[in-house]
C-alpha cells in the first residue's frame, strides 16, 4: 500500500515538473503552428547552463534560475527570426519546413553538446538534494516537491499572463486567428518571437531543475522531447489547459511502469501509449487540439 502511494506521489511530482516543458511547447504550436523538435535540447542546454554556472561561480544552482531564464529568452528571441523565415517560404508547407528546421536545430545543439562535453554524465546538487519532507508515513524528496511546486507556479504564472494581461490576449488572439489578429494590429512576428523566447526561457530553466533531479548528459534531450510530445499529444496540440492534466497522467504512467514493470520498459511504454493516443484521438483525449 505504501509503495502504491509512494508511486502515485512520485508520479505526480514528476508530472508537475514536466508541465513546464509541455506548456511552452504547446503554446509554441498553438500560436505559431511550429513543432519545435529541439524542445529536448533546450532542456539539455538549460541543464548544462546550470552546471556551468555552478562550476564557475559556485553557490546553489537555484539562484541562477532567473539568469538562465533571461539568457534562454534572449537565445530564443535571436533564433526565432530564422524559424520565421523557414516557415514563411513561398510555396512550401510551413509546418513541414518548421519541423525540418527545428529538427536540424536539435541535431546542431546535440552535436554541439556532445562535442564540448562528450558522453560524460554530470550532475548538479542543490541545498534541497538529499533532503526529505515527511507527510505522515511517507517521506518525499524535497527536491521533487520543489520541482512540482515550481511547475505549478510556472503554470499559474503562464495562465495569468495569457488570460489577464494585454500581451496574453494578443497571443491568444493570434493563436486562434492569425490573419484577423494581424488586421487588428497585432504584429504577428513579434508575437511569435515573444512566445518562442518565453518558451525557450521556461524550458531552459526547467532544465536546471531536471539536471538537479536527474543526470545531465548530451543525449538527455530525447527523453524530454518524448515527454513533451507525449504531454502535448495527450492534451491536444495547442490546447494549453490540457497540459496540466496530461503532464500529471504522464508522471503517473512513468512512475507506475518504473516501479511495477521495470525501468527498462518505461520509455517503450510511453511510446506505445503516445502512439495509441495519436491513432485513436489525434486531437488529444479531450479532443480540443488543433
Amino acid at each position, binding site marked *: 500500500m505504501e509503495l502504491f502511494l509512494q508511486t502515485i506521489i512520485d508520479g505526480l511530482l514528476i508530472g508537475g515538473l514536466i508541465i513546464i516543458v509541455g506548456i511552452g511547447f504547446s503554446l509554441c504550436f498553438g500560436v505559431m503552428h511550429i*513543432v519545435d523538435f529541439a524542445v529536448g535540447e533546450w532542456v539539455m542546454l538549460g541543464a548544462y547552463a546550470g552546471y556551468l554556472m555552478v562550476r564557475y561561480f559556485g553557490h546553489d544552482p537555484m539562484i541562477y534560475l532567473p539568469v538562465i531564464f533571461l539568457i534562454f529568452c534572449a537565445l530564443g528571441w535571436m533564433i526565432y527570426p530564422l524559424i520565421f*523565415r523557414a516557415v514563411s517560404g513561398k510555396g512550401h508547407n510551413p509546418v513541414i519546413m518548421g519541423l*525540418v528546421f527545428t529538427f*536540424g536545430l*536539435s541535431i*546542431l545543439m546535440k552535436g554541439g553538446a556532445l562535442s564540448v562535453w562528450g558522453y560524460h554524465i554530470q550532475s548538479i546538487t542543490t541545498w534541497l538534494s538529499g533532503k526529505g519532507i515527511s507527510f505522515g508515513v511517507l517521506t518525499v524528496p524535497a527536491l521533487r516537491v520543489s520541482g512540482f511546486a515550481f511547475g505549478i507556479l510556472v503554470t499559474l504564472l503562464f495562465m495569468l499572463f495569457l488570460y489577464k494581461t494585454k500581451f496574453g490576449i494578443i497571443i491568444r488572439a493570434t493563436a486562434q486567428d492569425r490573419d484577423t489578429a494581424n488586421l487588428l494590429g497585432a504584429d504577428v512576428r513579434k508575437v511569435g518571437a515573444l512566445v518562442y523566447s518565453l518558451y525557450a526561457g521556461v524550458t531552459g530553466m526547467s532544465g536546471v531543475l531536471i539536471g538537479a533531479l536527474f543526470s545531465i548528459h548530451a543525449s538527455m534531450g530525447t527523453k524530454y522531447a518524448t515527454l513533451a510530445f507525449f504531454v502535448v499529444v495527450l492534451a491536444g*496540440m495547442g490546447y494549453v489547459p490540457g497540459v496540466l492534466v496530461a503532464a500529471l497522467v504522464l508522471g503517473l504512467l512513468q512512475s507506475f511502469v518504473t516501479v511495477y514493470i521495470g525501468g527498462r520498459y518505461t*520509455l517503450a511504454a510511453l511510446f506505445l501509449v*503516445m502512439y495509441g493516443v*495519436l491513432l485513436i484521438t489525434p486531437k488529444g483525449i479531450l479532443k480540443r487540439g488543433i
Partner: protein
Amino acid sequence: MELQAAKAETLPSSLVWRFTPLTLLLVISLIYPWIVSPLWIRLGTEVLMWAGLAQSWNIIGGYTGYLCFGHGAFFGVGAYITGLMMINLGLPFGLGLLVSGILASLLALIIGYPTLRLRGAYFAIATWAFGEMIRQIATILDFTGGAFGLQMPSYLNLPYFYYVMLLVTGLTYLTTFLLLERARFGYKLLAIREHEEAAEMVGVNTVAIKNWAFALSAFFPGVLGGVYAYWVTYIHPDSVLGAQITDFMVVMAFLGGIGSLWGPFLGAIVVQLVQRVLWLFWGAGTFYLVIIGAAICAVVLFIPNGIIGLRETRIFHPREAISQLRKRIKW
C-alpha cells in the same frame, strides 16, 4: 517534372546527350573497385548505401510529402532480420536480404495504415515515436541480443559488398525512376503532397497510394540494412536503430533536393565527403553533427529545393541572385 512533356518530343541526338552521363556513371561505378584503394572502396560502399537510404526516404518524404522521422527503423529491422535469419535459420545471403525487404515493407504497411491517417506534424511525431520505440524494443528483447547486439560470421570480401550495395542502390533508383518519374504512381504521390483532398476528389485513392508508397519506401532500407549487417558483422540497437540513421537520410535528401530523382544521391555524396573531411581535420568525433544540423537549417532557409533546385535559380541569374541575397541578409 514539367520538362517531361518537352522531353517526350526530343530528337534522337539529344537522347545521346542525356544518356551519356548516365552511362559514364555506370561504367565508372562498375570498374571503381578495381581502380581504387580499399579505403576508397569502403567509402564508395558507404556512399552507395546512404544514396539508397536517402532515396527511399525521398519516396515517402519528398514525393509524397509525409515526413517520416523514424525511417531508420526499417534499416535497423532489416539488419536484424537478415542477421537473425542467417544465424538461426542458415538462410543464404540473398534470400535473407529479400526476406528483410519484404518484412520491412510489411512492417511499414502495418504501421502505415493507422499512421498515414495523421497529417504533417502528427505524422512526423508518430513516426519519430515509432522509430525510438523499435530501438527500445530491440534493446529489451533477448533474441535480438538486447543491448549487446548481434555478431555475424565474417562473410566475403570488400569488393563483393561494394557490388551488392551498387546493385541494391541501383535498383532503388531504377524503381524510383520507373514508378515515380515515368508512371502515374509518381504523379499521384505529388498530387497527394500538393493537396491531398483535391487528389482524393479527382479520383486518386489516397489511402491505398500512400500506403503503397510507404511500403515501397521501407523495402530498400530493409534490404540495405541486411547488407550492412553482413558488411560490418556486428550490429546493435544504437548502431542500426539509432536516430542518426534517420537524421542522415533526411539531411541528404533535403540537401540534394527532395522530390527529385538524383537529389538524394548528390546529398549522400556531399554529406559523406564533408563528414570524412571533418574527421580528417577534427578527428573522428561528433562535431560533424553540428555541421549536419547547421546544414539542414541552412538548406531549409536558403535552398529548400536542395542543390538540384539551384539549377533553376541563382547559377543562371547571378545579378538577380546577388540582389536577392542582399535583401535576405537583413533579418
